[in-house]
């Protein structure tokens, strides 16, 4: 899938996943990969700048948790502002999908 398209939706995907439960970075990446059956192939390094940006914007909060194995993981959870942003993004996404689909339907067979 076109990674440029994915870039614009990454924040939406992250907020959507975190609205389910708190997750750490690798868990987010692997969930996206699993739930889309590998449709989204992205540079995983892009995930963290986005997470940190969203944390700085107050949409999510990250907290370190130490596991029994001694490994430490930074779990992110969505905030109230994050949920509001998610609703806005989902609305925008729906509108975009409808608009793009209309154009694509009218252009059907022209390609």
């Amino acid at each position, binding site marked *: 899938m076109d990674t440029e398209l994915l870039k614009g939706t990454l924040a939406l995907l992250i907020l959507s996943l975190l609205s389910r439960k708190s997750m*750490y*970075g*690798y868990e987010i*990446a*692997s969930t996206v990969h699993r739930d889309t059956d590998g449709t989204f192939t992205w*540079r*995983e*390094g*892009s995930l*963290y*700048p986005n997470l*940190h*940006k969203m944390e*700085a914007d107050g949409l999510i909060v990250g907290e*370190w948790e130490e596991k029994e194995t001694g*490994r*430490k*993981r*930074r779990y992110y959870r969505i905030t109230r502002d994050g949920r509001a942003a998610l609703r806005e993004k989902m609305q925008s996404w729906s509108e975009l999908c409808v608009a793009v689909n209309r154009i694509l339907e009218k252009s059907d067979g022209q390609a």
Partner: protein
Amino acid sequence: MGKLDQYLDQVCRGIGGPMEMRQHVRQELREHLLDAAAQHKAAGLTDEAALDKVLEEFGKPDEVRTELEATHGQRMNWFIEKAMQWKEKTMKSKWLWLSWAHGMVGAILGLEVLFITFNVILIIPRFQKLMIDGIIDPDIMEDQGVAWFVNFLHNLSYVAGHWTTQITLAAIVLWGFFEWRVKSEHKTFIRLSALGTIAVGLMLVIILMSAGLVVSFTMGAPALGRITRPWVFEQVTTIDTSMTEVEKSLTAKDWNGMTEQVDRALTAATRLTAGPAASTLTAENDNAKI
């Protein structure tokens, strides 16, 4: 250094922000890479192949670093960064340094005023009394060209005695006016500079006052010898006279008169042994003995 650490160094070295935050970012990326590598190893890849695949999936170091720098800012040159940190710290503690400076200058001013007051009340009047009594001879200081020290002490004593209230009130009014009217952003520094200048001025007064007392006394002290000398001559004359009378009494076999004259001579000699009296009869630095 392993391939993983090398990769993380390349990614994280340019990230701006506090060191603690950079360490957190590094650890978070490291945990991700280790998780991903474990997943690939579970799928059958070797350690090295799993790590290579993970690093490839994560992205080229420069690309990841660029994105992280866009979020966290770019790390400056180490020296510039330290300088900025130092500046930030000192800016934050500006009030502390300024309060400390004000406190120290205030303490110096207080000690200076205390020292001047002590001298004006206790020492200078005694010094003036010594001059009135002729123990310190102004003519000697005139000859030595240090009479202006004495004039300074007199003037200082006069000003302290007659103008202290006015000077104190003027200082309070000036200070109040300064605090009321001056609105400059450098007000604190102006105040500090003014206090520092006053402290230097008072220090100058202290130096001149102390030098005046010490130099004047040292120069004028020889007058002590001149004052003592007539009395010493008197005692010596008494001894001479008594000894002459002793010889006469011896000729006349007046034993009682002779004993009396010996006692007088002995008393006079004993007086000469007290203090620096005998030294006034000797040349400079000679040691006199009775």
